[in-house]
C-alpha cells in the first residue's frame, strides 16, 4: 500500500510542477531580434579560471552591459563539444561567434566556411578566412617586462616558469620572460616545467602546485605561471612557503592573463595581463557598429593589449626605481630599440 501512495504522491507532485512551470513562461527573456546576438565558446578551463577565460568573459559581459547585445555562452568542457557549440549559435543565425583559445581555430575554420555571412572571432588563434577575426597578443613583450620584475626581486638568482600545455604559444611567454630576466641579470637561472601535453593541462591545479613546490625546492623564489586554471596551484605553493619575520612573502608568483594580484595578496608579485577583455569588447562593438573586419587584430604593449598589473595588492612589493627601469624598457620595446624574441615567429 505504501508504495502505491508514494507513486500517487510523485505523480501529483509532477503535475504540480508542470502546472507551475507553464505559468512561469514570462520569466524567460524574450529574444529581441533587433539586438546583435553574440555567442561565446570558452576553452576547456571554463569561464571561472580567474585567468584567460575569465578575461574573455569579463569583456563580453561589459559589452552586453554597454551595447544592445543578446549574450549567450557555452563552456564545452571537452574538445568534442566545441564544434556543436559553435554550430548551435550559427544554426540560430547569431551575428558574432567568439571562440576562446587556440585549440578552437581549426574547428572555427570549418564552421566559418559553412556560414560565410556570420562573423567569427578567435582569441589566440589564426585563420585566413575573411569572416574570421584573429585576436592575437604579443605575449613575449609583456613577459619580458615581468621577467625584469622577477629578476629584480629574486634573491636566489633562480626563477621558475610553469607553462600549461607544451605548445609554441606558451613558449612565447617563456622566452620573453627569460630574456627580460637575463637583461637584468645575465647569470640568472630559469627553471621551466610544463603541466602536460593535452587539453587537461589547463585544468590541473594539483599538478601545478607540485611543479611549483619542486621549483621552490630547487631554489626558485619567483614563479611565473602561464597555465590557466593549473596556475592557481602555484599560488597555493607560494602561500605554503609562508612569510619571513618582517611579514614579507618568501616566495612570489606572477599571475597571467587576468589581473591575479588579489588571488593571494602579498604573494603575487604582479600579473602579466593580456587584455583579452578589451579585445573581445572591441570586436563586439565593431559588429554592433557594422565595422567588423576579418584578419589579424594584434594587441601589444603600444595599445596596452599586454602589460603588467599594478594595484593596491602589489605596489609595496615593487620599489619605484624598479618600476622606472621597467617602464623605460617598455618604451624601448615600443620604439623597437629592444627586440624581444617571438618564439612563434619562425
Amino acid at each position, binding site marked *: 500500500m505504501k508504495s502505491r501512495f508514494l507513486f500517487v504522491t*510523485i505523480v501529483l507532485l509532477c503535475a504540480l*510542477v508542470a502546472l507551475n512551470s507553464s505559468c512561469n513562461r514570462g520569466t524567460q527573456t524574450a529574444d529581441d531580434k533587433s539586438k546583435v546576438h553574440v555567442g561565446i565558446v570558452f576553452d576547456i578551463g571554463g569561464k571561472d579560471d580567474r585567468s584567460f577565460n575569465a578575461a574573455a568573459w569579463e569583456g563580453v559581459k561589459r559589452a552586453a552591459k554597454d551595447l544592445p547585445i543578446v549574450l549567450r555562452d557555452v*563552456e564545452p568542457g*571537452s574538445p568534442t563539444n566545441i564544434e556543436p*557549440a559553435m*554550430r*548551435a549559435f550559427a*544554426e540560430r543565425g547569431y551575428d558574432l561567434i567568439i571562440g576562446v583559445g587556440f585549440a578552437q581555430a581549426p574547428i572555427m575554420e570549418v564552421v566559418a566556411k559553412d556560414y560565410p555571412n556570420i562573423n567569427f572571432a578567435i582569441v589566440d588563434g589564426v585563420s585566413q578566412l575573411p569572416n574570421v577575426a584573429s585576436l592575437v597578443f604579443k605575449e613575449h613583450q609583456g613577459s619580458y617586462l615581468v621577467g625584469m620584475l622577477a629578476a629584480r626581486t629574486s634573491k636566489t638568482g633562480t626563477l621558475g616558469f610553469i607553462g600549461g600545455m607544451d605548445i609554441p604559444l606558451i613558449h612565447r611567454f617563456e622566452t620573453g620572460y627569460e630574456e627580460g630576466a637575463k637583461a637584468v641579470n645575465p647569470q640568472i637561472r630559469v627553471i621551466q616545467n610544463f603541466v602536460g601535453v593535452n587539453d587537461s593541462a589547463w585544468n590541473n591545479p594539483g599538478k601545478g602546485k607540485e611543479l611549483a613546490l619542486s621549483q621552490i625546492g630547487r631554489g626558485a623564489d619567483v614563479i611565473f605561471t602561464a597555465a590557466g586554471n593549473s596556475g592557481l596551484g602555484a599560488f597555493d605553493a607560494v602561500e605554503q612557503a609562508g612569510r619571513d619575520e618582517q611579514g614579507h612573502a618568501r616566495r612570489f608568483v606572477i599571475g597571467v592573463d587576468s589581473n591575479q594580484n588579489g588571488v593571494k595578496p602579498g604573494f603575487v608579485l604582479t600579473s602579466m595581463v593580456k587584455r583579452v577583455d578589451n579585445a573581445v569588447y572591441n570586436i563586439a562593438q565593431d559588429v554592433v557598429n557594422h565595422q567588423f573586419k576579418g584578419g589579424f587584430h594584434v594587441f601589444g604593449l603600444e595599445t596596452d593589449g599586454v602589460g603588467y598589473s599594478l594595484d593596491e595588492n602589489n605596489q609595496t612589493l615593487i620599489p619605484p626605481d624598479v618600476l622606472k627601469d621597467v617602464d623605460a624598457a617598455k618604451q624601448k620595446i615600443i620604439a623597437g630599440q629592444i627586440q624581444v624574441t617571438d618564439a612563434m615567429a619562425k
Partner: protein
Amino acid sequence: MKLLRELLFPLVAVAAAFVVGGIVVLLIGDDPIYTYKLLIGSALSWPDGIGRTLFYATPLIFTGLAVAVAFRCGLLNIGAEGQLYVAAFATAWVSIKLGGTVVDVFGTPVNYSWASLPAVLLVPLAILTAIVVGGAWGAIAGYLKAYFGAHEVITTIMLNFIAVALVSYFTQYHYKVPGDPILQTAPIGAAAHIPRLSAFIPGLPESIPLNVAFILALLACALVYVFLWRTKWGYEIRATGANPTAAEYGGISIRKQIVLAMAVSGGLAGMVGVNEVLGYHHRYYDSFSENYGFTGIAVALLGRNHPVGIIFSALLFGMLQRGAIPVDAFTEHVSKDLVQVLQAIVILFVAAEAAFRGSFGRFGLLKRSKV
C-alpha cells in the same frame, strides 16, 4: 507479454529521469518545458538534429554492444574506453603509414608514410586494424582473468589509464606534425576516408559528420545477435555467463570463453575508431572520446544487453548529447550537466529495478523474471 515486461522498466526509468530532471531544472530557476523543448527539439530537428543525434549514437552502439557481449559472459568490461583509444590510434597509424600521408612542415613536404594503398585495400585494412587492436587490448584483461584470476573490473580500469597515456605519448612525440599546437597526429591518407551519409541521403548537409560507420554499427547489432543466439560460440559464452560451473561440467572451457568474450567486446569497442578516425576527424585526435566507453555501460544496461535495446538506448543517449549544448547555451541557468543528471537518474532507476520488482510484484504488475 514478455516483451512488454522487458520494455516497461527502461521506459519507466526514462520517464522518471525526465520528471526528476524537470524538478532539478525548476529548482535551478529555469522553465522545464522550455528546457526540454530545447533539448528534444534540437535533437530531432531535420536535418542537423537528427543527423548529429545519429552521429553521437554511433559510438554508443558500438560500446553498448561491447559491454553487452562481455556481460552475457558474466564479465563487466569497464575498459571499452581504453580499447577504443588504442584502436583509434592504431587505425590512424595504419591509415597514415599506408595512406601516402605527406605533410607540409614549415614549407618542406615531409613524408609520413611507407606506401599509398588504394581505398579498396586501405579501408578494409584500417577497419580490421580497429577490430584486431581493440580486441587484443580487451583480450589482455580476459587473459589475466582466465589464467591468473585478476578481476576484470580492476584490470580494465587500469588498462584504460595505460591506453590513454600510451596513445598520448605516441601522438605527442612521434606522430604530431611539428608546430601543431593541438595534440593530434598527421592526417590520414584520403584513400582511407569513408563517405559521409550526406553523399547518399538528399537533404542531409555535408557538414553533418554522420558516416558509413553508422551503417556498420547497425550491421554489428545484427551480427552480435546472430553470434550470441545462433552460433555455438555465442551459446558457450552465454552458458558461461549464466552458470560457469554448469558450463564447465558440460564440457565448455570457461577460460577460452572469457578470453573470447573480452576479445569480441574489445573489437566492438575498437570500431569506435572507425567512426572517429576514418569517418570524422580523419586523424587521431587526442582525448576525442566523450566517455563513450563508460556511457556504453549505461547504454547496455538500459538496452537490457540486447542488440535491439542497445540501438534504442544509444539513440536516447545520442539525443541527450546532441541536446546538451543548446540547453547550456540558450537557458539562463541550466548547464549541459543537466544531461549527465538525466543519464545518472536513468541508470539509477534501471539499477534499482530489482527493488521495484519487489514492491510492484505484490500488485501483480510484474512477475519476477530471470534476467
